[in-house]
């Protein structure tokens, strides 16, 4: 596709004039706008998440067991709301508005944290905290699929993974900056959690402003003409008459997407949660658990640095290939956890780099892989499916890993997951790429 052609399309889609001016890494302004939105929103949410344990135990007088409940509420989240977000975005064709509702809901929750301390009554506050946490997560669930659909509709198909790389890099920058900002504030103003909550609320509002001001709605008709076959257009245009579940089912019926869903769920199932990796790493080292937040920040930093180059690589070398081989660093991280590597702190630094590399080559790449396969009118719903598949896979993986750890041993658990990961990688590594590049826009046949 010529640069001129790209430029014309960007103009027609109403995105920034700077798009297409540079080489392969340049992405349209819309992607930057969505990236800035995510950056601010992640700063906002990570500020809260990183101080929550200290806040609940110190100020709200929470028992540690309740803290566990609050944390799992945060992790679990309402999965099916993702579908509703995807469905609403597709059906109305207003992805930006749907995403904005999700961002706004989370922003309102940040305000809730600020108002809550004044009326905390131990024992009663638990349900209010749960409501806040669940609503916050609902906001995230609503916005994810419309936002990713908007990213994928804003760029040429050949640039999908690069665009997601840019977005995920900004997202990771927010995740790394949030805790640093929160702790800096608490350092200067000890125990002033209200300042952290207020700053978090303002950052969330600014995130909504970034979405409304810097991002333009993309029209599927324009975008769809770019890469989709007539068959898909016909199928896509029959939208608008179904409700959320039948729409979800219809999208699932597409064999190409179903393969991506199975890929996502399968790999999610054999992925050990970061938290387990860090705790296991700490157990083998003389270091303190205080380092764990730093490991999260380090992983986010590595993710941030690698996301764009690996995204660009995926656009050239094939997204599915990069996604599957992107689990090699994860496998190496498991090996380090099992003790097959240098001593502290070299093992932690290596682990952080490997996990960052794993995220960079899987997270945005998977979204671009699915985005490239989906007809524009049902893209948000399809992305919601992939998102749900990853979440369900990881949720099951955490439970399985916890069970194995409790009833057998941590070593056996890691070995089991490593073996399963290796098998699933081997089984996907030799499959042909299905419609993951712009030149093969047809529906992939099941391999």
């Amino acid at each position, binding site marked *: 596709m010529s640069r001129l052609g790209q430029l014309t399309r960007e103009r027609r889609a109403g995105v920034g004039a700077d798009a297409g001016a540079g080489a392969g890494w340049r992405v349209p302004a819309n992607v930057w706008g969505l990236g800035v939105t995510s950056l601010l929103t992640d700063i906002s949410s990570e500020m809260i998440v990183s101080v929550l344990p200290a806040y609940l135990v110190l100020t709200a007088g929470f028992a540690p067991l309740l803290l566990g409940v609050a944390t799992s509420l945060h992790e679990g989240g309402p999965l099916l709301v993702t579908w509703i977000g995807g469905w609403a975005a597709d059906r109305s064709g207003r992805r930006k508005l749907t995403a904005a509702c999700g961002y706004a809901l989370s922003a309102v929750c940040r305000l809730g944290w600020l108002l809550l301390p004044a009326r905390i009554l131990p024992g009663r506050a638990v349900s209010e905290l749960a409501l806040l946490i669940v609503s916050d997560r609902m906001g995230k669930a609503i916005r994810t699929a419309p936002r990713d659909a908007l990213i994928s509709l804003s760029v040429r198909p050949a640039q999908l993974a690069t665009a997601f790389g840019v977005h995920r890099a900004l997202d990771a920058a927010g995740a790394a900056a949030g805790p640093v900002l929160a702790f800096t504030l608490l350092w200067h103003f000890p*125990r002033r959690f209200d300042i952290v909550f207020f700053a978090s609320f303002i950052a969330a509002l600014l995130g909504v402003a970034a979405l409304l*001001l810097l991002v333009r709605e993309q029209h599927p008709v324009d975008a769809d003409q770019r890469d989709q076959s007539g068959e898909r257009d016909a199928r896509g245009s029959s939208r608008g008459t179904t409700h959320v579940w039948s729409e979800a089912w219809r999208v699932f019926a597409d064999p190409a997407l179903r393969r991506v869903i199975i890929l996502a769920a399968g790999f999610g199932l054999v992925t050990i949660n970061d938290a387990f990796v860090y705790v296991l790493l700490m157990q083998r080292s003389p270091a303190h658990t205080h380092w764990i937040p730093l490991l999260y920040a380090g992983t986010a930093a590595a993710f941030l640095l690698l996301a764009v180059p690996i995204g660009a690589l995926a656009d050239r070398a094939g997204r599915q290939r990069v996604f599957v081989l992107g689990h090699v660093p994860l496998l190496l991280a498991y090996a380090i956890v099992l003790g097959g590597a240098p001593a502290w702190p070299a093992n932690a630094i290596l682990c952080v780099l490997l996990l960052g590399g794993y995220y960079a080559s899987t997270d945005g790449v998977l979204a671009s892989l699915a985005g490239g396969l989906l007809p524009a009118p049902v893209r948000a719903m399809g992305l919601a499916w992939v998102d749900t598949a990853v979440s369900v896979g990881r949720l099951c993986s955490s439970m399985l890993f916890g069970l194995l750890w409790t009833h057998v041993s941590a070593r056996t658990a890691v070995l089991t997951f490593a073996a399963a990961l290796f098998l699933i990688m081997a089984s996907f590594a030799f499959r042909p790429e299905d419609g993951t590049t712009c030149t093969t826009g047809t529906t992939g046949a099941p391999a």
Partner: protein
Amino acid sequence: MTPRRAQLFFLAACVVSILTIALYIAVARPQAPASSPSAAATTAAASAADARATLISAMPSGPIILFRNAAPGALYGRLAIQKLPLTPDAAPLIAPLSCERVYYAAGAGICLVADEARLPPRYLAYVFDDTFAQRPAITLTGPPIRARVSPDGRRAAVTVFESGHSYADDAFSTKTQVIETSSGKVLGDLEAFAVRKDGQPFASIDFNFWGVTFARDGDHFYATLKTKGERYLVKGSVDARVMDVVRAGVECPSLSPDETMIVFKKPLVREVGWRLHVLVLASGEERPLNQVRRSIDDQVDWFDNRHIVYHDSASEGTGVWMLSVDGTSPPRLLLPNAYSPAVRQ
């Protein structure tokens, strides 16, 4: 709106946001407890409770129950005392100390402090006397969880989490130290004591100890030992620096004042949580207490030879609950908004 104009608007929004945060920091009054007297005004109830509280500078005489004040307001986290027997609506006496976990017996107290608002967080322990004068602080290596002083006031024991933040987390490890109260110095770490099981030396690198309870002589004690997934009750001597495994399935023991019974928390089989049980030492008989349906995670203290007190967060109220060990009556809320109870009869 043109993209260029929208970008300018966004830049303006960024500047306004930063100014708003700066303005908030400049004008907002602290809501955090214990920061300034005005913080008490955050809730009417809290300020009313605070207003009724009496500040004290020495331990009152007679029977008392000590606890960490968990009522919201400016006095949150302070060491509080109620005289016994409790009278309804009696205002608490507030000591000039703030403790995360606290215990007191025979003129010596131990106060554990956590400052987690800083990075890295700081954890300290210090011994105090009847006038709340503090001995030099001991630096702790993790969040404090258990504190006990021997009935004769000679020794204190402190447990902290080294990794993991809850007993429910299977990967936790703990560190337990015994402190001499007269000097405020550490006498030793339980992991450095010898352990015997069935008379034979018993050792493993995964040993974790917690929940010390002292006998009246200030030397003998019971504690929990966890190794390879099993939790044992151990009985030891601080002077001899040795412990013997007594039985399995016992966590956070608490020895009755007459030294005939131990109340402990027993891990549930299929879920995460604990039920309080009583062990009669002479017969080895063990039975559950009717603490109703909830899980209790606390090292209990004895109110007298027939009743125990412990912390629980329940829908009926969060605070210190009381329960008889004969299993006849249900638990009742003794002190709302209280934590870490210690009784001196």
